[in-house]
Every structure is written in C-alpha cells, then in structure tokens.
C-alpha cells in the first residue's frame, strides 16, 4: 500500500536503472524488457531512487515546476504504481533522511507534463543472450 511516507528501491539484483541526459532508463534482466521515462519522470526517479518518500518527491517536484503539490503527488503516486506493477521497484525500509540528490539542470526543460513510462520489448531476445552467470559472494578476482 502506497502512502506519502513510502520510499522505493529497485528490485535487485536483476533490475538496473540510471538517469542519462535527464531520461531514466530501466532494464529488467530477467524479462529482457526495458523502459524509459521522459524528463519529468527522470527527475522524479532521481528523487525516488535516492530514498525520497513520495511526499518529499512531490514537494520538490512542485517547487521545481511551479505546480500544486497535490497535482505533483497524484502524478508521483501514479508513477510509483506503474513502477510497482512492472516489478521494477519495491517499497524500501529506509528510514533515514534522504540525501539531497543532484537534479538535472532545468536549462531547456519543457513545461510540466505528467510523466510517462514507456515499455519496450523489442530487445528481449537480444538481452537474453549470454545471461549473466550466477553471482556468488566468494568469486575471486582473476
């Protein structure tokens, strides 16, 4: 159940995420599917992915884009639900105060629009090639 204090983390170890040029990319190595989120979604993920709660994220998004906090919360929560549905994230038990992440520059940023999570399946077969071998903690360096 999501609420304002919920924090999220990527589902490990088969999910990886990174924000590049403001765009958030996720990959699920188990399914081969990958995802992208536009600039607004990328900014939300920078915050959510650095231990900010839904409420903290909404507040910072509202400040950044000059929109009402209620609207920002609606969109952040909707995005969090999509990420959960796609099994890319799970609720985190982190309770410590979130560090201030470095947000992408607002230079050239467009107006606020609700974030979109696009899902792609076209490389599933390709990413299934050479699946990673099991990871064992005692693997020695060669």
């Amino acid at each position, binding site marked *: 159940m999501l609420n304002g204090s919920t924090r999220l983390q*990527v589902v*490990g*170890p*088969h*999910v*990886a*995420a*990174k924000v*590049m*040029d403001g*765009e958030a*990319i996720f*990959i699920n*190595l188990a399914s081969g599917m*990958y995802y*992208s989120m536009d600039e607004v979604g990328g900014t939300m993920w920078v915050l959510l992915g650095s231990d900010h709660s839904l409420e903290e994220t909404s507040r910072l998004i509202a400040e950044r884009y000059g929109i009402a906090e209620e609207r920002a919360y609606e969109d952040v929560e909707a995005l969090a639900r999509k990420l959960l549905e796609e099994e890319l994230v799970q609720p985190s038990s982190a309770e410590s105060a979130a560090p201030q992440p470095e947000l992408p520059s607002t230079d050239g940023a467009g107006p606020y629009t609700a974030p979109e999570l*696009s*899902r*792609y*399946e*076209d*490389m599933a*077969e*390709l*990413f*299934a*090639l*050479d*699946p*990673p*071998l*099991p*990871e*064992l903690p005692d*693997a*020695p*360096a*060669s």
Partner: protein
Amino acid sequence: MSNVGRISCVVPVFNGDRYLAESLDSILAQSLPADEIVVVDDGSTDGTAEVAARYVDAVRLVRQENAGSPAARNRGVTESRGDLIAFGDADDLWHPDRLARQIERFEQRADLDCCIAHVQNFWSPEATVEKEMDLRHGDFTLPHAGVITMTGLVRRSIFDRVGLFLPSLRHHDGQEWQVRARDHGAVIEVIPEVLMSRRVHDGNESRRRRADESEGLLAAIKMSLDRRRAALTPTESYSPEEEGC
C-alpha cells in the same frame, strides 16, 4: 580458405594460462580450419604468454597493456586480415564443426553479416561452485544463445558500418554492439546449433557482475533510443508501439 573468404579467429585473453591451451586446441581441431588465429594478450601477469608461445607456428600473439576485453577484441579485429572474424573467449571450447556450420550459413545467405551460435555451459572439473549453481540456476544447464563476443562469426566489412566494440564498457560490450548493429540494419542470425562449450569456473569474469554493473546495457539502450529518435523525420512521431511493444 572457405568459399566466402578467409577466416580469422580472435581470442582476447587476460590471465588465462589455465585454460588457454585447451581453447586453442579446440580451435586448431576445427573441421574447417581457420586461416589465422590471433590471440590478444591483454596485459596478463600469469603464464599466458608462455602458453601462447607453445603455439607459435599456428597462432599469432599480440600483446598490449591491460585495456579490457572490448579493447583487446578491437585490437584483434584490426590486427587480423580475414574477411570473416570468429570470436571466442579464452576459457571456452569450440565444437569441431563450429566454423564449418557457421560458414555454411554465409554460403547460403549472401546478405548475412553475423552468425551467432548457441552455447552449452559446462562446469570446469576443478570448480567448487557446481552444486550451488545447479541449485540456484537450473536454466544454466540448458543451451542458450550466445553473444557475438562468444560465438559470433562476423563479416569484417560490417565493422566499417557499425564500428568496433566500445572499450568503455566493462560488461555487455557484445550486446551493445549487437543493438548498434541492429540499428544500422545489420543482418544477424542466431542458429540453434550448440557450437561452443562455455566453461563455468570460479574465476569467470561474468560471475563478478552485479546489477549495478549493468551500465553497459543501460548505456546501450539509451544510445539506441537516441539513434532511433534521431532517425525519425520531423513529421513523424515516435511511438513505442511501433518498436514492438
């Protein structure tokens, strides 16, 4: 020489003295012999050079400072002279008919740029992890499609169009290349035959991967998305559905 051109085998190796000889023996035992075998020693500090030196009549050894496997593979591409390049890892074993079967595909398909075979994992006799890996990953006992760096036979000319492997990627440089090749319209065929035995042992580089080391794949995805979006004309809109979603 095959009917479709000269074949070079490129084998990058880093501290691989334990398994290199077996791997080279399997290359030399091909039913369709290669015209050239290039071993790129990527700054090994073990006995790799000594092992390779035992094959001086059959193998060309190129040595470089440690720069990572993508850079070593690139060195192999530039040092080799074949029209077709077969890649392989220095701890894996080639099926005796690997080159013959893959060359057959090039003989049958003039448009083919890259042929990739399937792989069967095997557990090196001295490995200590067999039981745990079996328990945790039963699928790893089944054949699976390889990747260009492991089982690819590639037409050299495609590198002019697509470029070489990205040295900046620590992992997944093969997948990144294949994504890039696909975006450039390369014809890549994955054949079902198992033509490589992949050795699983305590020191596999890929066993040390972590999800947070998947940056190569994430970068490959980002670059591919950017390429595809840039390729669209201003009047077209980008629709994920059109990309097979």
